[in-house]
């Protein structure tokens, strides 16, 4: 077990180092002189060459790629994300503020998705191939094809513009959360319904279930002890994928609804060419992702001991 965890952690740290390197290389090779960009953003006027050179030295950009990279990654490992190249303020507190908007939205979206997909999948699998089942499959297919930004705009059009029931822009009150969470949640519901449905059908089709039934085991006991554990593995897989979807969905949804959060943080940082902020968001999402995948890998082995036997 310890060996397994160690090898998974090692793999995760290799991936994270790769991500950091790839991100830094991309920004290093971005068109335009970064020192000039910082100087322009800071002084907002035509700047003499000496000032640009001074900025270059201050930002550690004069020693070539590797010295700049180590100048960035060493504090990063200790948890210091550096300062915004535009405002000069620490990135970390601003990132925390952005997360405090994005994470509740992602959680609300996930809850909406679960609240829709679980009952829908259970109803649909009551009679596979029945009209309810076919409706659920059709809805899920359409849901998977609707991009979040269009769905969001349609919801704004219906609930905010035509009916005037809900606020659309900003994040002042809890009611401002409803439309964004619904937009995000409907997308989650579409893919979750598909997976839950096929997972339940597959688990129900197992050969040993009729034997239990004939032996007189209660139907509720069969579904709790013999069907549910088999549905768990695909559901956990999809959960990992959903978290990815939630993060990128939240980015789009925040832009549509003009909500503060990681999405607006990232887009405005890119537009201002504030690279320390861009790097912070990329590293944050990579750390989140790798950690979640690590946990899922471990969870798999707890849920289905056969997985551990196949590949250790």
């Amino acid at each position, binding site marked *: 077990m310890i060996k397994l965890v160690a090898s998974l952690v090692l*793999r995760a740290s*290799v*991936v*994270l180092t*790769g*991500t950091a390197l*790839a*991100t830094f290389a*991309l*920004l290093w090779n*971005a*068109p335009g002189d970064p020192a000039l960009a910082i100087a322009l953003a800071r002084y907002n006027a035509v700047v003499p060459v000496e000032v640009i050179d001074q900025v270059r030295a201050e930002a550690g950009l004069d020693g070539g790629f590797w010295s700049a990279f180590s100048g960035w990654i060493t504090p990063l490992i200790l948890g210091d994300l550096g300062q915004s190249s535009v405002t000069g303020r620490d990135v970390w507190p601003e990132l925390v503020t952005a997360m405090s908007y994005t994470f509740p939205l992602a959680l609300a979206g996930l809850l909406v998705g679960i609240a829709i997909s679980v009952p829908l999948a259970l109803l649909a699998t009551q009679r596979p191939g029945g009209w309810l089942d076919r409706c659920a499959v059709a809805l899920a*297919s*359409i849901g*998977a*094809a*609707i*991009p*979040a*930004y*269009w769905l969001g*705009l*349609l919801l*704004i*059009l219906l609930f905010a*513009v035509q009916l005037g029931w809900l606020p659309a822009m900003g994040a002042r009150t809890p009611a401002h959360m409803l439309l964004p969470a619904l937009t995000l949640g409907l997308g989650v519901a579409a893919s979750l319904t598909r997976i839950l449905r096929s997972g339940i059908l597959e688990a129900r089709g197992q050969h040993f279930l009729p034997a239990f039934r004939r032996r007189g085991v209660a139907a509720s006991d069969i579904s709790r002890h013999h069907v549910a554990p088999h549905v768990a593995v695909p559901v956990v897989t999809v959960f990992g994928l959903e978290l*990815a*979807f939630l*993060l*990128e969905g939240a*980015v*789009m949804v925040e*832009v549509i609804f003009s909500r503060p959060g990681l999405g607006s943080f*990232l*887009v405005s940082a*890119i*537009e201002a*060419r504030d*690279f320390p902020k*861009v790097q912070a*968001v*990329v590293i944050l*999402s*990579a750390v989140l*992702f*790798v950690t979640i995948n690590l946990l899922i890998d471990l969870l798999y082995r707890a849920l289905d001991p056969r997985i551990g036997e196949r590949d250790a």
Partner: protein
Amino acid sequence: MRSVIVLVTVFVLLALVGPWLAPHDPTQINIPNRLSPPNAEWLLGTDALGRDILSRLLHGARWSLGLAFLISVIGLAIGTVIGLVAAQGGKIADWIVMRTTDTFLAFPDLVAAVVIAGVLGAGTGSLIFALTITGWMRYARVARGIGLSLLNRGYVVQARLAGLSPVAIARWHYLPSLLPSLTVVWTGMFARAILSISALGFLGFGVQPPMPEWGTMLLDARIHMRSTPLQMIWPGLAVVTCVLAINLTGDALRDSLAEADQR
């Protein structure tokens, strides 16, 4: 199924001949006629600059579908080669390739694509680069997985002992077995590419105005949502119908492959 094939064919034809069907020039600005409701002359109305929405949709099909096709095919080629190198190249090559794949999978595609396209400067070139570099990993995983399972099959071993080069083995023995699964992955990635292109367009990092692309059209339409809500419906509807048709084709393809496997 037949209706889905018809739908996909219609879209492909539209992307190919759409520009000739368009009744107006998609970039012709006509301010006096701005935000016109649909009528006999302007079948779907005009946008904020008086440009014909129908013509922009038809021209946009070439951008949205054409670019998505290009991006998914480049990803397919790169991913397959990388996957086959991992399968045939021994343990070290496999480890390097798989950790690289994990690294590229370590962020949400769209976030990575936004960063890459945004940092390189908005434009069609950076769009293609951003979506290709975030879109090859699934092909590589599938190609590697199937490649590894074939590694010790009799006919592959024999080809190797007969002195066939790895490239020849890949071409004549791996590729035919890979193609069905890769085609299914490709349909999924094609649909995703359409969604990503319009998402980037909507964020302002994609195809640049005045070129008509469906996501960019949505971005324009969003501002005039209150006065002309219909303007916002058409580009979104185009994206959804395309993606739905391609996804359904992919599902049908996967089912028929699974059936063929069982026989």
